[in-house]
């Protein structure tokens, strides 16, 4: 088994404690840092996402795999510095104005980062203007917005409406989610995608930049 395969296996099994060491060993053996990232980690997380979708693994196993990848990326980062080709794109994420819930959003961020995105986390209770300001960055390819309450779904509608009017709209895709949000509501407010869980969100985001 190659070192990169070992990294992929460790990420898939969520072995956060050993991933960093394996990355160091791979670098010492002369492996290409981009290949470690793409084949050892991002591809491994794609397999994790697929297993999740097929009910072969569940949320805890998915989260430990994402954390293992994060540990590996921390070690790998200095070797990737300055090489922007290693991210598949930049995504902005936030929970809409008036909504303080961040658990679901954070899970989505973990999975989106594991898919190779750089994520700008705007946090919770994010006003429309802040979404617009962040999305104006020409490198941003996707904006994700979530609402966990029916009372904040109107703020989600306002956020998507404002993004839809922005002159950079054709450059970005808008994804929405949250417990009361449905595909029907996403269609109605003009979002590009709705997903019901973190793994599907990562898969959908990847499809937008493929």
């Amino acid at each position, binding site marked *: 088994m190659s070192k990169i395969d070992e990294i992929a296996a460790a990420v898939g099994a*969520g072995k956060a404690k050993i991933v960093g060491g394996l990355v160091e060993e791979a670098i010492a053996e002369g492996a290409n840092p981009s290949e470690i990232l793409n084949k050892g980690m991002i591809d491994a997380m794609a397999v994790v996402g697929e297993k999740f979708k097929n*009910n072969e*693994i*569940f*949320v*805890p*196993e998915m*989260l*430990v795999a994402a*954390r293992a990848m994060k540990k590996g990326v921390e070690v790998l980062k200095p070797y990737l510095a300055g090489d922007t080709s290693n991210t598949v794109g930049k995504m902005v994420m936030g929970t809409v104005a*008036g*909504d*303080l*819930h*961040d*658990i679901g959003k*954070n*899970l989505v961020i*973990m999975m989106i980062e594991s898919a190779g995105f750089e994520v700008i986390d705007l946090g919770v*209770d994010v006003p429309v203007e802040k979404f617009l300001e962040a999305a104006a960055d020409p490198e941003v390819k996707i904006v994700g917005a979530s609402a966990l*309450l*029916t*009372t904040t*779904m109107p703020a989600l509608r306002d956020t998507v409406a404002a993004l839809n009017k922005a002159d950079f709209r054709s450059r970005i895709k808008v994804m929405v989610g949250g417990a*009361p*949000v*449905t595909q029907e*509501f996403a269609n109605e407010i003009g979002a590009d995608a709705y997903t019901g869980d973190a793994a599907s969100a990562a898969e959908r985001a990847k499809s937008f930049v493929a």
Partner: protein
Amino acid sequence: MGLYEERLARVRAAVNLEPVDRVPHLSAGPAAMAAYSKVPLKDYVSDMELNCTANIKYVNDFNMDGTQAPIFDPNILFLQWFSPIVLPGEGSVGENELWQVHEKEVMSEDDYDKILENGYDEWRVDFLTKKYDAFNKSKKYFDYYPTALKRHKEAGIPSFVDGVFQSPFESLCGARSLETFLIDDLMESPEKVEKVFEKVHEFNMKSYIAQIENPETRPIGVWVGGWRGTPSMLNTEMFEQYSWKYMRELIDLCIQYDIIPLCHLDSNWDNGLEYFKTIPAKKAIVSLDGKTDMYLAKEILGGHSCIMGDVPAEMLAFAKPEKVYAYASKLIKDIGPTGYIMCSGCDVPFNADFENVKMMQKAVEDSAVK
């Protein structure tokens, strides 16, 4: 037969899977009850008498068959799942805006050791006091509760939730916050977590038995909730070991004392419906929130347990009344009429259109045996 007895009998008949004159309808969603009476949420959560008055008006104006909350104070949520609550008028939440659970890591990893060393009760009192002042904050709720029950009974309204029987999974997950609990605790130190679960559960069971055996506090029904320890969150082995095992004991406890376990199942329980087939038939209510397939529930639990729900919150907030009427009527026809209770999926939301709530009741009344 008085109104109270008539409504109680109707719900009991649904639980027993007996024919009903009309499908019963239970209320859910205290914030909506405040909104219906135009009581600002800050006043609603601080004045339990006003709170109770609003709740009674809501149930009786819509001619529902019972309540799941004679009064409600969001502070009690901290006692149940150990996550801080931001009340109306606090922080960025306006005085007439919905309270929100602000889940964060309020329990440290060391707390597991403290529970194992000093016992759960000692830790619990210290934690609830220091982290949220939970006993003082919820005192007004517990002080008024017997009066609220009495007022509801006088108004002809049975309460089917007079207690929350909690599995340790839900409260400790709330205290540690989801990510930390699943990754650092359950996946890294499962043996220790399980030992703590046993301590917590032992204490809870004793408390619940004491509540049941006291004639003053003996409930008709209690909430047995599951929203994190679900079969869509956990693999089968983990679900059975860390969640269902305790839920099942809570359900069995209720049944042993002839109390209705109202199993409030948030999130998707499609993969977990079979477990409810293993509990004694005609004893429990399986309440679904719009994420579980009601038709699958009917297929698996029809003829075994009463099913309740699941008019979705977003539909009650944003759909046209005709759509809600059609949805509710279809539920009665397909899931009921026997062994079915009309209800929202989880709560009727704060921003519900009350014409939509009326449509749920209209569907129930239109389906009544003439």
